[in-house]
């Protein structure tokens, strides 16, 4: 199998380059990450993040043949050769396929990603009906991989000001939670030409999400809530 991989080591390289690799393997049932681990056995300088190897931790997001995805759940057999791997677009590259995620995390933290409820805590759980709980499905499962935000043109241009699809999905996760009492403050915070309204519904984010989540839908819901409260 043939690979073409983005390489850049600031210690030794003046600029990035693409490096070709070959592996004498059959795709079979292998995932892309399995192949990358074999490449790393051959060349220990090849650098990328990984942890769970089952698509739940969000470590190994990268640009695979032009599309953002997780290497560990991308079957090799689904990829055209040479398999071209690049770092996630739009974020500063630290080394090879490793990007600096700080802007992405910063936007996530900026939406106050935690339940806000100042009422006294009951001795038991706060009750929530199965229907109310179902509102959180499709939202809470986000693994913060950044596949979505780094495929979003609005995020590329304004990563410091636009929250981006992942952060907005989480903002809506708390707005939608019947236990959260800060909807008004959350909406106030997003009513801003940049934080929310840079989204032009291009839907790249939906296509990119490896967990099948739909940030555009959540963004639409937030916009709806904002319109509702102005009329």
């Amino acid at each position, binding site marked *: 199998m043939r690979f073409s991989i983005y390489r850049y*080591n*600031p*210690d*030794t390289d003046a600029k990035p380059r693409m490096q070709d690799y070959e592996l004498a393997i059959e795709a079979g*049932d292998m995932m892309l990450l399995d192949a990358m681990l074999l490449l*790393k*056995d051959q*060349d*220990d*300088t090849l*650098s*990328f*993040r*990984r*942890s*769970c*190897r*089952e*698509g*739940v*931790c*969000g*470590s190994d997001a990268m640009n695979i043949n032009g599309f953002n995805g997780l290497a560990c*759940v991308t*079957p090799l057999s689904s990829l055209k050769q040479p398999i071209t791997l690049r770092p996630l677009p739009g974020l500063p590259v*630290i*080394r*090879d396929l*490793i990007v600096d*995620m700080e802007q992405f*995390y910063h936007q996530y*933290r900026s939406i*106050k*990603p*935690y*339940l806000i409820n100042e009422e006294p*805590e009951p*001795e*038991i*759980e*706060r*009750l*929530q*009906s*199965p229907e*109310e*709980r179902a509102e*959180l499905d499709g939202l*809470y*499962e986000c*693994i*913060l991989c950044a596949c979505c935000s780094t495929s979003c043109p609005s995020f590329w241009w304004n990563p410091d000001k636009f929250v981006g699809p992942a952060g907005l999905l989480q903002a809506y996760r*708390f707005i939608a*939670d019947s*236990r*959260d009492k800060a909807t008004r403050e959350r909406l106030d915070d997003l009513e801003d030409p940049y934080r929310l309204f840079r989204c032009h519904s291009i839907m790249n984010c939906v296509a990119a999400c490896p967990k099948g989540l739909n940030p555009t839908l959540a963004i639409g819901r937030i916009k709806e809530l904002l319109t509702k409260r102005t009329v």
Partner: protein
Amino acid sequence: MAVAKRTFDAVIIGGGGAGLRAALQLAKSDLKVALVSKVFPTRSHTVSAQGGIAASLGNVKEDSWHWHMYDTVKGSDYLGDQDAIEFMCRQANEAVIELEHFGMPFDRLPDGKIYQRPFGGMTQNYGGDPAIRTCAVADRTGHAMLHTLYQRNVAAKTHFFEEYFAVDLVTDHHGYTLGVVILNLQTGEPLFIEARATILATGGAGRIFAATTNALINTGDGLGMVLRAGLPLEDMEFWQFHPTGIHGAGVLVTEGVRGEGGYLVNKDGERFMERYAPNAKDLASRDVVSRAMAVEIHEGRGCGPKADHVYLKLDHLGPEVIKSKLPGIRELSLKFAHVDPIEAPIPVVPTVHYMMGGIPTNLHGQVVAPTRTGPEEAIPGLYAIGECACVSVHGANRLGSNSLLDLIVFGRAAGNRVIDHLKENPFPRPVPVDALDPALSRLARWDRKGGGESVSAIREDLRQTMQRHCGVFRAAEVLKEGVAKVKAIAERLPHAALTDHSKTFNTARIEALELENLMGVALATIVSAEARTESRGAHARDDHPQRDDRNWLKHSLYYAEDHRLDYKPVRLKPLTVESFEPKARSY
């Protein structure tokens, strides 16, 4: 070499469930706390936990913490410490309710309370009908819990050192822990974190085996650090094989599948667990189910062309239940087994899953060792919690959904004890001039240029050897050979070399440091296993098939120096209730 230093009141190493819960406890008292993690916290292995977290809330059926305690003691094959088990089971309800208040999105029952499901080994009335005790967020409980705890830490403004690798503890000649040397992955620079309390929460080490449900980062780093500090590891022979790892991939299928009504069949379509555990059947304890599967496969009733696995059948649950309660499993099965469980059974094999042993602690999370006077003297300034610790609530076999509980109960308890310790010790102790040398020379060793064997070659040999010589069934000869082989592999490590010597994000160096830790954990495991001539919980010896309480109702302690073994008694006396006396174990 001058190393930069930062001073905190306490440092926590590990951003999984245990570390994040401890950090929240400390944040409440306005202490200066550093939380170090080699990965961004939500990439920690806790994220993979699927089935749930145990607590006797009784939301579906009557339940009590005392029944939960009985099940845990019995599940542990009586090797668990009953004071710690009472402590954990008593606090479970409060701990889970607190997670709910933190915002964890538990599934709900029609009356709005937390959804609970049955899990293996959990019963009503001391071994009666199955209990419904495991609180769940679909089959993504760990993800929901880890993200919730991380989110609370964002709210609490915890000081994170993300993508820093802990190299070694810093200690003085009186045995005090003074902090830790960490390595900034991005810059490659070491940093000394000085702290009056150090909490290890570094998780498991399943990567010592070739086939495991564990993440690639589960390399037992905290255990390696403790061994290098001259301290022992407890009960390392006890490794849980989870019955349902996906054949070939090692990816886990939660016991919650059997909790929801799924069951195992052999090649004849027979529900074979009825023969091995007539009452609990597929919900018997994990050691029991894994051994039954191994026997079925060994006796030629396995499935597939090589007859090397069995099937987990759940299509009869119907698409509704599978889609709403087990969506993550369906996704994993489609991806890794190419099977849609709505239509066909999933091929599964027993797979290494959980480390019952670890760093010995008491129920306050203090690391304990036989130093001067007793077998369990606290090491000043050092704590351990979560899977890396052995408190010991799981004994010889953990019950599913008790680990997530362990993380939060002891994360909190350790936090509280650290607060007391910091009050009693308001000033840092002097750091001896040479205290950082061991950590720094360990780092420098990998800068050596020139040829040598690769880290990955040694690691793969180690993992294959552990798999072959320390599996579900063990025997004297195989273990003895295994010990010799692992020792021989360990001797190759000093000759290994890297080709990558750059500073920036050098993952090759991290893998080398991890291999040193894996090596220590593997040796501890196989040496302890060879010595224990009985079968108890997850440790099953062909040559000693019975449990031997007369000689072996005791915890193993392994020291790296000369691979020395020592033993200490099991704490059979609970805090307030009567002991559960060791009895024959059947399900």
